[in-house]
């Protein structure tokens, strides 16, 4: 009997520890999924370059961190972290806005499939230009967060884990407030529902679309920094798998729905963490994730929290 009791307790610890790990990974997926869902919400277009925008954001965070650490100033790590984040978010926002302006806006009245194919092309462009500039060898992300471990009630967690979950939650709450409460957020939602009449409300639609790309890309860059800290090996194709996973997260949660993207991110985090516990190996994780996508598309194509259809205008 004592053995069973012990086994039960270990089981609980194992479960709790993995839930924590799933939360950490899910936070990153959620941050990236937000970019897919915001662009879809406003333009009904999947920005397949978003995973690669995330990749560029991760590299820019690395560049910012390396630059600040290299200064002969002995900056505190907090300053390096915040500096790298600001640098990366601003430049990645600019990248997102430029991509929309140069690649997507000229195609806005073209069939939607043209914009989607262009997005795939933009993704390949970003991957290959990064490969061209930096070469294929992976780069290592410096440690900005102390590597201490805390043990509480048999659970191990690190300052980084706490930082990732808290920062992601903070960004998501901020974005949710922006979209639900402010005039700007209202304009975004209005464009999704009935774009032709939005300019007649005095809303500069192109400006709002640019801002949407800026916000989505900046959040992906923040996700990139957090991801780089947690999984510190960067390569130019890292955005492909993570981009797909975040995309699945957005669709599972209900694409176009901001809270859905958050929920989807956490579900995908759980899929990644729990797959190796249930199935023989972690190589099954993509199989599980895409199966989830397929099953969902059959039984609830609008996702868990999605709205049924967009108003046709």
């Amino acid at each position: 009997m004592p053995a069973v009791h012990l086994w039960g307790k270990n089981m609980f610890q194992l479960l709790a520890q993995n839930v924590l790990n799933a939360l950490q990974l899910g936070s990153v997926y959620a941050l990236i999924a937000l970019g897919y869902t915001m662009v879809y919400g406003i333009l009904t277009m999947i920005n397949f370059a978003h995973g690669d925008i995330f990749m560029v954001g991760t590299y820019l965070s690395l560049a910012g961190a390396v630059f600040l650490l290299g200064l002969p100033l002995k900056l505190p790590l907090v300053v390096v972290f915040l500096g790298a984040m600001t640098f990366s978010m601003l430049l990645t926002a600019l990248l997102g806005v430029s991509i929309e302006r140069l690649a997507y806006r000229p195609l806005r009245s073209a069939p939607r499939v043209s914009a989607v194919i262009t997005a795939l092309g933009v993704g390949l462009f970003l991957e290959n230009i990064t490969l061209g500039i930096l070469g294929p060898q992976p780069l290592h992300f410096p440690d900005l967060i102390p590597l201490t471990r805390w043990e509480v009630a048999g659970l191990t967690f690190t300052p980084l884990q706490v930082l990732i979950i808290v920062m992601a939650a903070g960004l998501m709450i901020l974005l949710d407030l922006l979209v639900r409460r402010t005039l700007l957020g209202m304009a975004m939602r209005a464009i999704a529902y009935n774009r032709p009449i939005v300019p007649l409300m005095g809303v500069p639609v192109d400006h709002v679309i640019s801002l949407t790309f800026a916000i989505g890309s900046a959040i992906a860059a923040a996700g990139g920094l957090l991801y780089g800290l947690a999984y510190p090996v960067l390569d130019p194709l890292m955005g492909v798998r993570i981009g797909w996973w975040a995309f699945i997260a957005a669709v599972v949660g209900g694409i176009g729905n901001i809270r859905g993207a958050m929920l989807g991110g956490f579900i995908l985090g759980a899929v990644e963490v729990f797959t190796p516990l249930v199935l023989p190996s972690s190589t099954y994780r993509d199989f599980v994730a895409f199966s989830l996508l397929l099953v969902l598309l059959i039984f609830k194509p609008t996702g868990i929290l999605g709205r049924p259809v967009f108003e046709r205008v």
Partner: protein
Amino acid sequence: MQPILEVTHLSHSFGGLKALTDLSLEIFPGELVGLIGPNGAGKTTVFNLITGVFRISQGRIFFRSENISDWRSHRITAAGIARTFQNIRLFKELSVLDNVRLGAFGQHRYSLLDALRRSRRFTAAEQQVTNQAFALLERFNLTHYAHTPARHLAYGEQRRIEMARALISRPQLLLLDEPAAGMNQSEIEDLIQRVRQIQQDFDLTILLIEHQMRVVVNLCQRLTVLDFGQTIASGTPQEIQRHPKVLEAYLGKDGGLGQEAPEPAEETP
């Protein structure tokens, strides 16, 4: 006195079809002018040209002596021209309050940074918009529905939301596109009262499209009559009612004043 709106030699075609030919119009501050004409006469096209929904290819439009002919819609709205729609154009999934608040977008400037930091300027601006929206909902008896999605409201109430939404942008010129469409006699009486009241309270100039003669005769000081895109008459309601061309083209042979059937959808944005 300078006209608030001046339209000169405005023409527009859709493909080969001439929707509007050589319209000239002057509206002075404080006036209430009607644009009338039968189905497909090009009335809504005029509104779409004034508000920048269609690009102007021929003719010019001046608002407060400024040439706005190549301005885009959001700039025109922010400059002080608001409109309603013949077929109600609301954001059906958004709440009534949000529909109205959105109308204020052009009047408030704060940067994204302000919004993210929830700065005092930002909070004050948002609060002011919300207060104005509630005041307008009160005026249009919609307070009770503030948080209801617009699509749940009845037709007449939805028309009132459109009017509130137009007014919150603090326009100087208000364009009303068939505000009485689908209304019965007592609702029309109510509407006439309401339009007079808002004109006075908000110090407005109003250009109104209408199909039903009884509405414009009671409300407008001047009328311009369109038929097949051509201006066939303009003058006071009394003059227009007696004008032979109007009687022939607009009222038809067996028609009488105020005997129109409801008009189906015209071209709208």
